[in-house]
């Protein structure tokens, strides 16, 4: 694996987030995809970055707060008479 990090790779790195989020105009995307075809390092960086983001997105599992935390919150706000109404 090449140690040296090419100038084009650095340029790609700068747009990586926006590329992943689909916020780049088509012509820039094309440029990036052309570079990716010929650059394994950048492909790995792109794919592992995407995977990293996916992992944190699934991870928190949209859980409600624990019941006791909710109870103390309502008590603290003097809203405990609404504890029953739960969503």
């Amino acid at each position, binding site marked *: *694996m090449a140690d040296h*990090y090419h100038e084009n790779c*650095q340029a790609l*790195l*700068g747009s*990586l*987030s*926006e590329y992943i989020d689909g*916020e780049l105009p088509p012509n820039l995307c094309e440029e990036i995809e052309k570079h990716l075809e010929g650059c*394994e*390092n950048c492909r*790995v*960086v792109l*794919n*592992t*970055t*995407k*995977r*990293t*983001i996916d*992992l*944190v*997105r*699934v*991870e*928190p599992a*949209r*859980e*409600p*707060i624990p019941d006791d*935390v*909710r109870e*103390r*919150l*309502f008590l*603290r*706000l003097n*809203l405990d*008479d*609404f504890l029953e*109404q*739960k*969503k």
Partner: protein
Amino acid sequence: MSDSTTQEFSLEALRSGDRAEFARVMDAYSAPIYRLGLKMLGSQQDAEDVLQNTFLNALTHLKDFEGRSSLSTWLYRIASNEALMLIRRKKNTVNLDDFHSEETEDVPLPEVFVDWTALPEDELLSGEGKNALDAAVNKLPESLRMVFVLRDIEGVSIRDTAEILNLTETNVKTRLLRARMFLRERLSTYYGERLAPKERTNG
């Protein structure tokens, strides 16, 4: 607090002191706010403080809320301030500037190029893998972590994140990229070490 889950609330009712409506707001927004506290402070007790202080603060200042930003943006702003204040108090520093300080556009270059993306999801998200991920998130500097939590964990837009944190969109984008690269590097190092022996025997 992504748009799909945002419910409509009556500002008028809230401002006129409708307690039932406020209780509904709490139920709608307490989970993401608690999560933000957990990710920023790393302890349930602190997360609970952030949660309670956020809504106490919101209740006090509801009359000043003009509805120019959305309710979720407004609550997130209060919550992120509460979290940052608590962090500062814990660290016992009075340096209030560093969160908003201008920073270089420099993004550290990637150094580990191991492709671990084929590992099955349950391996990545169970036990050790989850610990590695949590540890990496905890190692993020607060200024990056806050942006990362809002954008990548809670799915808040770049624009709203900028509004919540009083940063420019460019600044948010730079911090987000740095946060993502930081986490990618750590996870790649972690999985690289685990994958390396296998690769050697294969090659």
